């Protein structure tokens, strides 16, 4: 280390500190470089809203996949957000801290289960159940929503827990002193104060749901068509990339990278919003 000297190390560390930012830029540059030309050629509007995806005949419209991604993400939010937020409220406000310290890591283990395993469970357990009780093939928006909802639960829950715990205890004491019950305190005082953090948790969950790939490929059925019911099979944007990337060449491959561009932009927007909301939570109101 003496070789570098104090100043040398400082410069080196400053350089290293930019590695994440540099990586992000590199990703953006290469994805855009591959994907942007075809978007410019077809026109963004055509690429997003044309309903035909037929790579063999040079038709690249991602509208069916776009709708599918929106449906599945929306469904995942309906399943995952209420459960995640409910769990967060329960663990912070209604059980002793010692219980929370046991249950929170257990739920965070959910986040560690590989997404392919979630997809597999969906295929082996959930899809047959839905096929029997609701009809259809079982590989559907509904199944995908339930599986994705479960997968984003830990994200929603752990960020919600942080933001609920960040609410100063004096807020609660004030409410108790006015004779409110714990639940009244929670929904009238605590949740209002923690609102921006909870919204951020939902948005980050949304980002994860849109970006999830392997589980969706296994459970959503992958039919390229605009769905008419939640029991229809769909192919999301991410699934389309992963399914066709293996053999795509030329324009086709560019179109897949262009799909990546759309995903990248959507996720950057979602992350930025969540980021601002989380920062807003941190700075306390005087």
């Amino acid at each position: 280390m003496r070789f570098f000297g104090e100043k040398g190390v400082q410069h080196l560390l400053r350089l290293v500190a930019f590695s994440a930012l540099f990586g992000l830029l590199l990703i953006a540059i290469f994805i855009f470089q591959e994907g942007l030309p075809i978007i410019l050629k077809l026109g963004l509007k055509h690429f997003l809203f044309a309903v035909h995806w037929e790579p063999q005949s040079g038709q690249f419209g991602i509208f069916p996949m776009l709708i599918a991604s929106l449906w599945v993400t929306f469904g995942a939010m309906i399943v995952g957000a209420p459960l995640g937020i409910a769990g967060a409220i329960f663990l912070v406000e209604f059980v002793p801290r010692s219980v929370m310290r046991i249950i929170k890591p257990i739920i965070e283990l959910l986040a560690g289960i590989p997404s392919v395993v979630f997809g597999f469970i969906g295929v082996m357990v959930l899809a047959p159940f839905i096929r029997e009780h609701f009809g259809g093939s079982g590989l559907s928006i509904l199944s995908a929503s339930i599986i994705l909802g479960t997968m984003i639960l830990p994200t929603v829950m752990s960020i919600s827990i942080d933001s609920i715990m960040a609410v100063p205890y004096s807020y609660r004491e004030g409410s108790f002193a006015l004779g409110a019950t714990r639940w009244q305190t929670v929904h009238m005082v605590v949740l209002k104060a923690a609102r921006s953090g909870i919204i951020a948790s939902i948005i980050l969950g949304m980002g994860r749901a849109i970006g999830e790939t392997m589980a969706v490929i296994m459970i959503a059925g992958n039919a390229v068509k605009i769905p008419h019911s939640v029991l229809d099979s769909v192919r999301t944007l991410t699934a389309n990339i992963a399914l066709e990337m293996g053999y795509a060449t030329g324009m086709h491959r560019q179109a897949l990278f262009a799909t990546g561009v759309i995903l990248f932009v959507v996720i950057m927007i979602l992350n930025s919003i969540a980021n601002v909301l989380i920062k807003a939570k941190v700075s306390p109101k005087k």
Partner: protein
Amino acid sequence: MRIPPRWSQAGAVAILGTATFVTVMVLIFIIAFILQKGLPVVRPSFLLDFPKDMGKEGGIFPTIIASIVLPILAILIAMPLGVGTAVYLTEYTRESRLTQIIRFGTDCLAGIPSIIFGLFGFIFFVTTLKMGWSLISGGLTLALMILPTIIRTSEEAIRAVPSVYREVSYSLGATRLRTVRKVVLPNALPGIVTGMMLGIGRCIGETAAVIFTAGVSLRLPTTIFDSARTMSVHFYILAREGISTENAYGTAAVLILSVLLINLSAYGMMHWIMSKRS
């Protein structure tokens, strides 16, 4: 009609408690289901044999090796960058526009979905830099993917080192570099290792970013420039192409056990740090 506060309180507790209970049950169900179906398949021969007939018969030995080598490569690349970033952010600079930009970049990188990492790794490492489908392409891609986790956990661990420690070191005439090396990093080490293990867990479970960078070759890799198939990719192919449900369950059981074991030891370590501190 107004619901009495005591009733609404009881109702809320019941609903919230049920939601939490359901979540925990789902987790236990997933793990129990996979282990119950998969463990009977996992015999020593399953772990140590080469796959035959695309994985229909035989074991998963090469995929286990790939799942060990790939995270190690990713960690070797990501740790110096991640810990270096954390040291810079905590010890060498104060909060400024610059640190805000670095943090923003880190947060954004953390939100990028793995399929985008896969696309990037394919076009950059595999194609542009001509590394081909190989362990090194996969390792570099995964390193980028886990970098935010490493930065965040290392930064937290370093910040948790009491400033008194640093002051004592400085008062003895130590330089900043010496303080970082002899005082800050050793005390932050358990926290940094926790982050490392969480990173390894993510690498082992990852599929989308690996399948397009490390490839799907079932041969035993001999150098890091060989293509290799990890357990999660193998499991995905077995399950999706319907090659062998039995072996898919077996692979899933090994996969889930290794991820759980690594994550549990990470949490154990975190718990140990917290109890030591208080």
